[in-house]
C-alpha cells in the first residue's frame, strides 16, 4: 500500500471508531501513534544500533505536538472563559435579568418572548455554555410563558434558539477554538463575528415580534403592570442592577480584546475576576459554588485541550502520509466554483452537526477544509464565521439537538419533544437566511476587522 492509501485507510478507520463511541481524544492519540509508527518505520535499518523498537521518530512528534498544545498562547484563554461562564451561571443573575427585561419590553408584542430571547442571548454570550442557559430559562421563563397561555412550540423555540446565540456572539469560546484550529487571529475573528451575531439575534427578534403581530393568539398580552409589579420598583433601577452590570462586563472583556488593551487571555482573566465580583455583589458567591466552578472548569478544559493533543498528533501523521493532499486533489478534481465549494463545505459541517458536538467538528473536521480555502479565494476568517453560524444548527437539529433535550429535561411532562422541535424549525430557516445574507454581503463580517486592523 502506498502512503496516501494508508492515509485514506486511517481516516476511514477513524470515522468508524468514532461511531463506536470511544472517547475521541484517545482514539486520535492511539491512531496517530500507530500510523505514525508505520510511517517512520524503516525495515532496512531496523535492529541496527540506534534503530530499536523505541527509536521511532513518532515519539518525538507525539510529545512535540503535546507540548505545542500546552504552550499555545491562545488556548490559555479557554479555561479562563469557561471559569467566567461557570461563575456567572451560578450568580443568581438570570431571574433578575429576565424580569427586568420583561418589564422593559412590556409594550412590545410577545413581550415575554422578546425578553426571554434577549435574556438568553446576553446570558449565553456571557457564559458561552449552552446547556446551562437553556435549562435555567426552561425553569424560569418557559413556565411563565406557558402560564401566560403562550403557544408551547413558540415558547420552546425562543429558549432553544436564544440559548445558542452565545456560540456566535463574541467573546465566544467556540470562535477562540476555531482561531487556534485555523491559525486566524482571535481578535480579528471576534471583530468579524460581532455584526453577524447581532444580525442573527435581530432576525430572531423580528421573527418573534412578526409572528406575534400576525397571530396574537401565539403570545397573548400579559398584564403589563403585573411584570412591573413583580419588580416592585422602577424598571430603570431594575435594569441598572441586572442588565447593565453583566452587559458592562461583557463589553469590557470584548473591548479590551478588540482595542488591543489586553490579550484574550488577560481579558478573560479580568472577566473571571469581574464575574467573581458580580457574584459576590448578588450574594451568590458561596464556597460550594466556587468549588463547583473550579472543578467543572478543570474537567471541561481537559476535554477541549486533550482533544487538541489528539487532533494535532493525528493530523500531523495524516498529512505526513499525504492524506491532506489526497483530499485536496479529490475536491479540486471536482472542478467546483467557489460558491459550490462553500455550499458543499457548509452542508458537510451541517450534517456532521447531527451526530457530533461543536468541539469535535471545529478541532478535527474543519481543519480538513482549511488548506483548500486559498484555492477558492475564501478568507478563513469569513469561513469561520459561516461555520459559527452553521453550528447554531448542530444544537437544534435532531437526533443530537442538545438544546431541545435540555429543555425537555426541565419542562413539565405534558410538553412533547416534537412540540419543541416544531418550535425550533423556524429558527433553522433564520440561520440559513443569515448565512445567505452573509454570503452575499461578506462585508458584514469583514468590515469591522478591516477597521480594527486598518
Amino acid at each position, binding site marked *: 500500500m502506498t502512503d496516501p492509501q494508508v492515509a485514506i485507510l486511517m481516516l476511514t478507520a477513524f470515522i468508524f471508531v468514532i*461511531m463506536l*463511541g470511544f472517547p475521541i481524544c484517545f*482514539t486520535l492519540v492511539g*491512531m496517530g501513534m500507530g500510523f505514525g509508527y508505520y510511517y517512520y518505520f524503516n525495515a532496512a535499518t531496523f535492529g541496527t544500533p540506534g534503530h530499536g523498537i523505541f527509536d521511532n521518530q513518532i515519539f518525538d512528534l507525539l510529545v512535540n505536538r503535546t507540548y505545542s498544545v500546552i504552550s499555545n498562547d491562545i*488556548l490559555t484563554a479557554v479555561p479562563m472563559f469557561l471559569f467566567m461562564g461557570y461563575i456567572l451561571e451560578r450568580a443568581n443573575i438570570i431571574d433578575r435579568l429576565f424580569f427586568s427585561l420583561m418589564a422593559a419590553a412590556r409594550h412590545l408584542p410577545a413581550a415575554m418572548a422578546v425578553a426571554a430571547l434577549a435574556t438568553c442571548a446576553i446570558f449565553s454570550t456571557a457564559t458561552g455554555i449552552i446547556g446551562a442557559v437553556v435549562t435555567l430559562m426552561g425553569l424560569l421563563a418557559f413556565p411563565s410563558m406557558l402560564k401566560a397561555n403562550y403557544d408551547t412550540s413558540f415558547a420552546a423555540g425562543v429558549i432553544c434558539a436564544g440559548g445558542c446565540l452565545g456560540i456566535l456572539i463574541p467573546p465566544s469560546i467556540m470562535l477562540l477554538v476555531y482561531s487556534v484550529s485555523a491559525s486566524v487571529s482571535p481578535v480579528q475573528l471576534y471583530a468579524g463575528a460581532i455584526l453577524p451575531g447581532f444580525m442573527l439575534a435581530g432576525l430572531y427578534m423580528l421573527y418573534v415580534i412578526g409572528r406575534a403581530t400576525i397571530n396574537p393568539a401565539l403570545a397573548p398580552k400579559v398584564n403589563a403592570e403585573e411584570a412591573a409589579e413583580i419588580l416592585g420598583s422602577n424598571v430603570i433601577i431594575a435594569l441598572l442592577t441586572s442588565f447593565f452590570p453583566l452587559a458592562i462586563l461583557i463589553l469590557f472583556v470584548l473591548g479590551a480584546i478588540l482595542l488591543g488593551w489586553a490579550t484574550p487571555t488577560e481579558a478573560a482573566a479580568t472577566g473571571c475576576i469581574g464575574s467573581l465580583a458580580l457574584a459576590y455583589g448578588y450574594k451568590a458567591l458561596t464556597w460550594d459554588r466556587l468549588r463547583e466552578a473550579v472543578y467543572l472548569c*478543570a*474537567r471541561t478544559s*481537559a476535554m477541549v485541550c486533550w482533544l487538541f493533543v489528539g487532533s494535532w498528533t493525528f493530523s500531523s501523521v495524516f498529512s505526513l502520509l499525504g492524506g491532506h493532499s489526497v483530499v485536496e486533489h479529490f475536491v479540486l478534481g471536482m472542478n467546483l466554483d467557489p460558491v459550490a465549494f462553500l455550499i458543499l463545505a457548509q452542508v458537510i459541517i451541517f450534517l456532521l452537526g447531527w451526530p457530533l458536538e461543536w468541539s469535535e467538528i471545529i478541532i478535527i473536521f474543519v481543519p480538513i477544509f482549511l488548506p483548500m480555502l486559498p484555492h477558492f479565494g475564501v478568507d478563513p476568517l469569513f469561513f469561520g464565521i459561516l461555520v459559527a453560524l452553521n453550528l447554531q444548527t448542530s444544537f437544534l437539529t435532531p437526533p443530537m439537538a442538545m438544546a431541545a433535550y435540555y429543555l425537555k*429535561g426541565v419542562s413539565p411532562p405534558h410538553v412533547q419533544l416534537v412540540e419543541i422541535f416544531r418550535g425550533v424549525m423556524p429558527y433553522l430557516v433564520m440561520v440559513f437566511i443569515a448565512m445567505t445574507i452573509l454570503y452575499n454581503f461578506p462585508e458584514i463580517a469583514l468590515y469591522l476587522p478591516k477597521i480594527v486592523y486598518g
Partner: protein
Amino acid sequence: MRDFLFSIDRISAWMGKAFGWCIMIGAVGSTWEVISTKMFRAPTPWAYDLSYMMYGCLFMMAGAYALSRDAHVRGDVFYRLLKPKSQARIELTLYFLFFFPGILALMYAGTDYAWESWTLRERSVMSIAWFPIFHFKFIIPIAAFFVFLQGIAQVIRCVICMKEGAWPAHLHDVEELETTLVHAREDEQETADDLGVKTGSAD
C-alpha cells in the same frame, strides 16, 4: 475490585481538582498584569509564563479526572443504543487497541523529552524573564501516568459491566448545572408520581 476502582477514581479526582485551582492563580496573575501594565506602566516579567504554565498544569492534570467522570467527548449516536454489555466489550477492546499504546507512548516520550530539557536546564525563549521551563515539561509524563492509571480503572469498569450487565456507579461529584437541574426535575416528577399512586390506591 470495586474498592480498587474507586481508589483510582479518588486519586484522579483529587489530582484534577487540586490542579483546578490553578485557574484562580492564573486569573489573578493575568489580571494583575493588566492592572500593572495599564495603570502603572510596569508590565510584570512573570505573568505571561505564569498564565500558560497554570493553563498547562490545569488541563493536563485534569485529563485523568475528566476520564473518570466520562467527560471526554465521544460520538455516542450509535453507542448509546447498544446494551451496556456490548458497550463494555467494545470499549475494552479499544482501550487496548488505542488508549494504552497511545498513553504509554506519551509517558515514554514525555519522560525522554523532559529529561533532555532537565539536563540542559532549559529556559523559555518566549519569556521576558528567561524563565526556566525544564521542570514544567515533566507535566507531560506525570499527567500521562495518571491518565494511564485511570485507564486501568476504566478497564475494571468494563470488566464489571461485562459480568453484571450494568455500568458500575460513579462516586458522587459535582455535575454540570444542566445535569443537576434535569435530575432535580426527574426526582420531583418521581415523588409526584409516587404521591399520585398513593392517592390512587387510597381511592
